[in-house]
């Protein structure tokens, strides 16, 4: 192989260019080459790259080795390396900037297309579901449930309700593909007596422009949804069970200095609070004899990257309340130290499927080591990836959203809301007809 020749630089180095853009960017040069990042990174070895090597190339100014390297799409920017780094170097944010070294049109089509789609319509939906289509789907599914489930004849799913306390974001996947998956959450909100609303404008929670490392577009999508919530006079911007949308709004608001009185909050701590306040009373009795084991995936975007271990604790509190303390098994490592599943960073849309499945092996092994039948993921991308890992590696576990489990334990999970449950739970704790 040709040697690397370190010449005195003529042009500004990549690292110098991004120093002001990366949070804690003054630390980028501090690498001790200790290997803490690489030793705990699921992407180590993919395309012969690892986080230490990548940073090293950048520190040494070997920019041409970085530019256009496909590894930037194989790193999910989960920031486990940053968490481990004794120098606190934000390698994740550096990879984000390195994605930018790719010409926009050459970036992975799936991510690019989803971002552009969201930019094309005011709904913010990456799947291109318009404001009106969204409202139609909501009303359609709402009508159906009121008709087929008499107990829920008063179920509400308000759209553009002025002055509602919570503005709830929605990932396009449910209205686009599996609208019945929205019902458990509506039921939960109903039981807890929550004052909430969807909006037509900017209802789409997802933000592929963030994965595309397209700052301008990320900001545009985030601004659109935040402004919509502000227009409705809401107090809290409530992120649904979707890690990256939570992070994109939470981080986007800071990164782009979006001036807003809104509190930006994830939903898991609210579930926990509603249970603690007695507004939700999940019962794990159904599992007392079944003894079905559950584990949870801590979404990087909601735990390590933003809300930290307190959210992870709330997540466990809710799951345990639903399945019984003795039927919960934690995977190790967990909480802020958890491994990314490989669903983050736009991986699922990037087209690097082989790398993604390889990346996910660690997660698959972690889940299998728990012996759990179910992995609960309060995140769409985690859900999708962990589900796909089970299919690819032919594992027996099931992957479910937290709302499914919560609704099940509240005794309100309808028959057709059990797509992701296994055979063992199809008939358990069904609501009385």
């Amino acid at each position: 192989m040709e040697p690397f020749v370190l010449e005195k630089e003529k042009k500004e180095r990549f690292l110098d260019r991004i120093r002001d853009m990366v949070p804690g960017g003054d630390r980028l040069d501090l690498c001790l080459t200790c290997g803490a990042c690489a030793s705990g990174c699921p992407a180590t070895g993919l395309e012969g790259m690892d986080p230490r090597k990548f940073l090293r190339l950048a520190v040494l100014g070997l920019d041409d080795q970085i530019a256009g390297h496909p590894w930037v799409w194989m790193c999910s920017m989960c920031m486990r390396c940053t968490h481990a780094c004794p120098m606190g170097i934000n390698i994740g944010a550096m990879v984000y900037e390195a994605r930018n070294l790719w010409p926009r049109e050459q970036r992975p089509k799936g991510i690019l297309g989803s971002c552009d789609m969201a930019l094309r319509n005011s709904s913010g939906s990456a799947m291109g579901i318009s404001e009106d289509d969204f409202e139609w789907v909501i009303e359609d599914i709402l009508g159906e449930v009121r008709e087929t489930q008499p107990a829920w004849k008063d179920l509400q799913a308000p759209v553009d309700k002025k002055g509602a306390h919570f503005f709830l974001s929605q990932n396009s996947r449910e209205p686009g593909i599996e609208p019945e998956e929205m019902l458990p959450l509506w039921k939960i909100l109903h039981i807890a007596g929550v004052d909430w609303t969807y909006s037509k404008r900017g209802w789409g929670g997802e933000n592929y422009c963030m994965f595309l490392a397209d700052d301008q577009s990320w900001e545009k999508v985030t601004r659109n949804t935040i402004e919509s919530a502000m227009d409705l006079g809401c107090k809290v911007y409530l992120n649904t069970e979707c890690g990256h949308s939570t992070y994109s709004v939470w981080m986007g608001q800071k990164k782009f200095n979006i001036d807003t009185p809104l509190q930006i909050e994830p939903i898991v701590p609210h579930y926990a609070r509603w249970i603690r306040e007695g507004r939700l009373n999940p019962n794990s009795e159904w599992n007392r004899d079944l003894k079905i084991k559950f584990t949870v995936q801590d979404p990087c975007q909601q735990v390590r990257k933003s809300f930290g271990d307190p959210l992870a604790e709330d997540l466990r509190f809710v799951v345990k309340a639903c399945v019984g303390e003795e039927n919960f098994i934690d995977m190790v490592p967990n909480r802020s130290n958890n491994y990314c599943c490989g669903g983050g960073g736009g991986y699922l849309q990037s087209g690097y499927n082989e790398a993604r499945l390889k990346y996910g092996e660690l997660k698959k092994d972690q889940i299998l080591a728990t012996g759990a039948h179910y992995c609960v993921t309060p995140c769409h991308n985690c859900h999708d990836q962990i589900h796909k890992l089970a299919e690819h590696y032919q594992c027996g576990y099931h992957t479910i959203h937290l709302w499914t489990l919560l609704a099940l334990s509240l005794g309100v999970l309808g028959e057709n809301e059990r797509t992701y449950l296994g055979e063992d739970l199809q008939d358990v704790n069904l609501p009385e007809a």
Partner: protein
Amino acid sequence: MVVGGGVAGIQASLDLADSGYKVFLVEKSASIGGVMARLDKTFPTNDCSMCILSPKLVEVGRHINIELLTLSDVNTISGEEGNFEVSITRHPRYVDMDKCIACGLCAEKCPTSVPDSYDGNLASRKAIYVQYAQAVPLKYAIDPESCIKLTKGKCGICRKKCPTGAVDYEDTRKDIFLNVGAVVISQGAETFDPAVHDTFGYKKYPNIVTSLEFERILSASGPYGGHLVRPSDEKEPEKIAWLQCIGSRDAHIGARGYCSGVCCTYAIKEAMLAKEHSKSGLDTAIFYIDIRTNGKDFEKYYNRAKEEAGIRFIKSKVTEALPVDGTGGHLIRYINESGKRCEEEFDMVVLSVGLGVTNQGADLGQRLGVDLNHYNFAETSSFSPVESSVAGIYVCGAFQGPKDIPSSVIDSSAAAGVAGSRLSGSRWRLTKTKEVKKEKNVAGDRPRIGVFVCCCGTNIAGVVDVTAVVASAEQLPNVVYAEQNMFSCAQGTQDKIAELIREKDLNRIVVAACSPKTHEPLFQETLQSAGINKYLFEMVNIRNQCSWVHKQAPEEATQKAMDLVKMSVAKAARVQPLKEPILQINQRAMVIGGGIAGMIAADNLAQQGYAVDLVERQARLGGNALSLYKTWKGEDIAGFVKQMVEKVEKNPGITVHAGSTIKKVDGFVGAFGTTLEKEGCREVLDHGVTIIASGASELKPEGQYLYGTDDRVITGLELQARLARRDESLDNVETAVFIQCVGSRIPERPYCSKLCCAQSIRSALELKENKPETEVFIVYRDMRPYGLREDLYREARQKGIRFLRYNFDKGLDVTNEKGCLKVSFTDFVLRRKMVLSPDMLVLAAAIVREKNDPLAGFFKVTQNDDGFYVEAHLKLRPVDFATDGVFLCGLAHGPKPVDESIAQAQAAAARAVTLLSAGSIPVSGTVAQVNPRLCSSCGVCVSVCPYSAPRFSEKTDKAEIESALCKGCGLCAASCRSGAIALKGFDDQQITSMIMCA
């Protein structure tokens, strides 16, 4: 006053007390010893920690001029240097120290067990306790937090059981006020608590332990009796991992940015010892960032660990140790040399935790107004490394920065030296001297032997039938009295023995107890106090040799104890009083070497009131420091040297002999006669002590990396000289490359030159500062800016200096290609060949010493394979030579930076003053003597003696032995083929009598 009774405080106290000052040693716990007392073995010699510490503990406990204040905290200090008012709170011990005989009955019956922090909480102790068996003072204390009598008013068993009525539940805290002239703070450090930012599950999983806990696991006095087992199932582990830099070199919450400096070497030690302990071929792996074995002889230790012991060294920081279901083991993921992520299971994981200032330490520092740095270590200047920001308050040991035992000991002697130099006016004013009793002449009297057999609590009596040993001793010839003692060494017993000597007219004493190494001087003092010669004493070690090693066979142990006593009694009947000649100490000192170390030593001695001859080979003083620019902290060395030279030259107490070489040395401690030659003229100087500070030099790596053929290639020292004179050529440098370890850490020179990493970084920063657009690369094997120097390393990275770890095995080449310098090597992380094109190449060259230094022969001191002088003991006597009256410091001892050279020079001066200030010293009576009638003048004794005590008499041509030099080792006596040499106290008749009755 010395605050903190760890090894640093102990050394400072002893040096000060031996130099004529009254010392108060204040210790917060119930006994002195500190961290060192908890260690199993010490690196790099693998000496038993307690065995080498214990004599010092005993010495402190016995010292007439050291007053020990245990369970005490310093509250405030007011006043100024020379006159401080100190307020101290002494917390209640609840045990009367005068009455307690440490029999242990109280603890045996105490119903309350609590985790024993001394044992890393791996074992338990009682609410009434001594910290460890060899504790000084060996007096029980009640832990008021766990004692149920004190907390709930119940129980009271210990008071009932105590045979001497020592337990006092009504004991109260006392306020003590002292007036002292100087304060030495040696509060030490504590290990990092990994539970602060627990990513490993240290608190959750029993088989993840800290390195200090692992010391206890290895220790024979530890929770598992020295068997290598893991806590979860007490089974022997087959694989152990050490994770380095836990809480050090880390920016995480609770962790510290600096390097703790000791963990690499202690991890190597622990891994080597664990392998020795293991029965099943233990597999050990050390996960590291850089291996920093930069202390003296540490690199060889590292090489031995790697090459001989087969310890695996893996350069990968590890951030988790995942529990493996049901096995008690842990899975470690790391990145290997080829960049692959690997997984490996280990039975046990040891966290190599760093050192940090205790909260109490920081509090005290703040209360006293001592400046602390951002890590709460005491702030000091490189030029006065043991002086705090408050005049008269000195710091040493790990309170000044993370450091190992030798450095702590050097610092503490230095603190004693500097404190002593400021207080020299009041030397011997407040001290007491031992009363010398007139000795009764017993020569010619029939032996009347007294035998005292010690139970040592249960230590001996638990195995050996002490009563039976006493009964058998009573029957032996010449024994007129025999008895057993609970603790023969207890103050009360000592008084009783003295009384019995007088009452029963005993003229030979045999004590059957523990080791003479630690306790013989104590009993000898008792004999002296009773008015008989101290050599009329024999000691039998029935603890180590009977009860400890034959625990399983008490009957045989008892029989062996009886036999040993019988042998000693036989010998005792034949021992004769011996005289200890008194040697006068000439009050002048000679310091050899006029570099920084020599000048500092001379200056300190002069300040302490002793005349000094300072000998320098070169025409001017200053040594290597004349080419140095700045210390790692950025202090101006040139200015300091200039000032020092002036100070020394102006000092009337110092006679500078520049341009002089030493031609001949006669004499010995107290009376050296050294011949100097200057410009062909010879002069003999008389002096009582000698400090060797003859320095070392930087290697000129001729021929290597184009040095000497291409003038763009220079050494680190040459660069410093250019920086110092602001050489204009530096302005033209666009790209500078430093190569580390040039000539160091290679088979020819298997040592680390210690100072080059920080020096290169400092110089690199100067180049950057001079011209910010200069590209600077440092190519290295392991970066070793130890201790607080890690901050400098971080600053350098921050400022864009780029560090490249290269693969040493694949080599490094420097070539000249069409006029361009090319440096090529393989980068460790990228695993690719790299090429740099510097216009200045700086070689961080080794520190070297000539291997056949004539001084070594003159002063009968030894050099190691690398040419550096060998100190008396690497750990505890780092500035003494085995030859009495000769001390060393500076680069002659080993490579070290300026601040450490200065501390060592001050330490050497302090050690020298302990001799000078005494005025005279007694020489041991146990010396060899030649019978000239039998001597055949063969010369064997002259050649075998390691201390050069025998020589041929100029008059008679027969051998004679200089008793001042004789150590009583017996080598000459055993080697003499004519039977002309006898060792007093071990003559043939005495030894034969022992053998005959065995």
